């Protein structure tokens, strides 16, 4: 399916939950989905016969600045060989988004990484812990307003 058809399909199925779309003039067409409906949309896209997005290629956190964070989902179907991108935008003050780890197991560690780096809380994730940084690290390093702490457990951090 091409991006426009996918967008129309999602719009008719989910209506209000599809917030914004950019299909033309970009490398990867995307739609923005309400953060509290993303797991429903993901499950629909995986299971529906017309879409069959059985694989999540990449899940990334992005700091959009101006007080917003985003989670970007790059989907791909190995059966139908088409691609699509979903985005969920959340305020940095209260970043909560539904977890898709139950839809694609691949999201498990990537959501942990997004939590680790951006502090995005994934509701329904089975095991949301830091993954790359130490468990007792303070702050979320990839946020644009991140300040490197002076000390970590008595060790000087900036070199």
């Amino acid at each position, binding site marked *: 399916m091409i991006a426009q058809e996918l967008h129309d399909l999602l719009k008719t199925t989910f209506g209000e939950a599809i917030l914004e779309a950019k299909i033309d003039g970009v*490398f990867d067409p995307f739609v923005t989905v309400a953060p509290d409906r993303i797991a429903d949309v993901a499950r629909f896209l995986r299971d529906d016969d017309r879409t069959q997005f*059985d694989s999540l290629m*990449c899940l990334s956190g992005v700091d959009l600045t101006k007080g917003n964070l985003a989670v970007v989902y790059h989907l791909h179907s190995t059966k139908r060989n088409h691609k699509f991108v979903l985005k969920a935008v959340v305020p940095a003050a209260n970043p909560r988004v539904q977890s898709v780890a139950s839809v*694609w*197991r*691949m999201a498990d560690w990537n959501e942990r990484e997004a939590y680790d780096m951006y502090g995005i809380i994934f509701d329904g994730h089975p095991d949301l812990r830091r993954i*790359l*940084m130490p468990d007792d690290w303070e702050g979320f*390093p*990839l946020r644009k307003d991140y300040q490197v702490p002076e000390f970590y457990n008595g060790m000087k951090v900036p070199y």
Partner: protein
Amino acid sequence: MEVTLTDVEPGRRPATIPGLGRPLRAEEMVISMGPQHPSTHGVLRLELVVDGEIVVDVIPHIGYLHRCFEKHCEHMSNYQQVIPYADRMDYVAAMSNEFGYVVAMEKMLKIQVPERVEYIRVIMAEFSRIISHLIAIGTYGLDIGAFTPFLYCMRDREHVLDIIEETCGARLLYNYMWIGGLSHDVKPSFQKQVSEFCTYFRPKIKELNDLLSYNKIFIERTANVGVLPGDVAINYGASGPVLRGSGVKWDLRKNDPYSIYDRFSFDIPVGQGLKGKVGDCWDRYMVRVHEMEQSTNIIEQAVAQLPEGDVQSAIPKRIRPEAGEIYVRTETPKGDLGYYIVSDGTASPFRIKVRPPCFINLSALPAMCRGAMIADVVAILGSIDIVLGEVDR
């Protein structure tokens, strides 16, 4: 899920451990494997929850080699400076990492690179596949107790490294592929050397098969161990030999061609369950052996067609992509390496996210290890072929 002191009575073990998601049962014991363990190929710590000799669950702990690749990228003053850092992710196949990044950037900047550059890049990328698989196979034998094949693999790898060294001066971390071109053209003797290597290398694969692949002890240790079914592998996002070992015919060089891979004829080897079930350790191992043969085929075809040209003619003076974002993935020896690059229109990257294949393949480890023996964990981990530099970035 934090263990606090109140959970632990004096003389008793903790009732829960983070990551397990349930209390420990009375008959279960937790064994820590790593971070310093010869079979983890770097600093990886596995917590094994075992019931006697049977592994009930595995909890991987990573991040010991984390060096903020993505944070560094955001602080670069231009896009070219990312390339040496990309080298250091999967440091045994650095060419493939560069390749993915430059392909993504060229697509973003809409640069058409000269034919000669494309051909040399493909040769180098396939060389890096061969040297990466040689290390994977050699160390895998080492893990399982076969020492000799490791030395044979290292000997053959040396021939490739010599060719690469003569081309760009480095043996491990190259900074060879630049956005729009290459740092050096190849030497005049390059074609002859590469052809000689191909002739030399083919019989060595047969030698390796006789020595290791069809060795009875090796098969006993790997066949029917760590079976990963194809649909589970797709759901875990597994890629590369791990996915193909599970019988899924999926290779980006064929299924989503980039660069000039559509011009070469080669096969995609998949696991067939010849010695056990489809998707066991032996299948994943054997896919790598067959891939080395196929890479040799590609190199031979590419070097025969190598056109003339200037390898630096398309390098842009100033790199300033328009605001926008792109996701490009390429097939590295370990699997699909994806770069998600966001530009805000300035000269330095706004956000670069890497989808490292090793990181995602490793996340399927618990699914493969449940129900196996402790000694099998070593065999399963080796068959995934992780490089911790890429897992932790």
